[in-house]
């Protein structure tokens, strides 16, 4: 799973700290999501999409694992 949070954050001129405060999570979690180390829950993903006023699939991109 890839995400475009960093891009949307730059578009909205938000720092990691500001984004974290807006959606009620810690800055460490924002860093972890941006670097694909942590996959957010559906609720949190919707919250992020809602904040950036885009669809969830515009931020989170599902990649099928090829064997």
């Amino acid at each position, binding site marked *: 799973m890839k995400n475009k949070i960093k891009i949307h954050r730059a578009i909205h001129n938000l720092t990691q700290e500001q984004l974290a405060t807006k959606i*009620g999570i810690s800055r460490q*979690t924002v860093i972890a999501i941006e670097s694909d180390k*942590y996959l957010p829950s559906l609720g*949190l993903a919707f919250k992020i999409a809602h904040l950036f006023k885009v669809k969830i699939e515009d931020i989170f991109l599902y990649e099928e694992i090829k064997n």
Partner: protein
Amino acid sequence: MNIKKYKQIRALVAFFISVTVSISVVQDSYLLAVAGVLTGMLFLILVRSKTKIVVDEREKTVREKAAQMTYAIFAPTIGLGSFVLTMFARGEFYYLESLGMVFTYLTLFIIALYSISYHFLNKKYGGNGDEE
């Protein structure tokens, strides 16, 4: 107050407690140690109540995994330890045998606690499996 400041204060309080306990050991005064530890604890509780600590879903996931790992390591280790102690110290080393019995009950308690909490949480999150 943010988490960074809270961590700094916590380190300072830990330092204060360790110094107080060290002095109390040197002076052989347990009252000083108790007073030092209690003061430190009270101060930390006060500071913590003023701090905004965010416990989000990642933090909860980390805690879940840590608890799971702790159980997976602790339960078999203490279970095996209790078995070894009760088997090999039987009738010879009464102290070790008693310790083995304590470990046995502790192992049973942990397994029972895990089973009860698992059953409760499974029910809470709809894991009954009866409905279609």
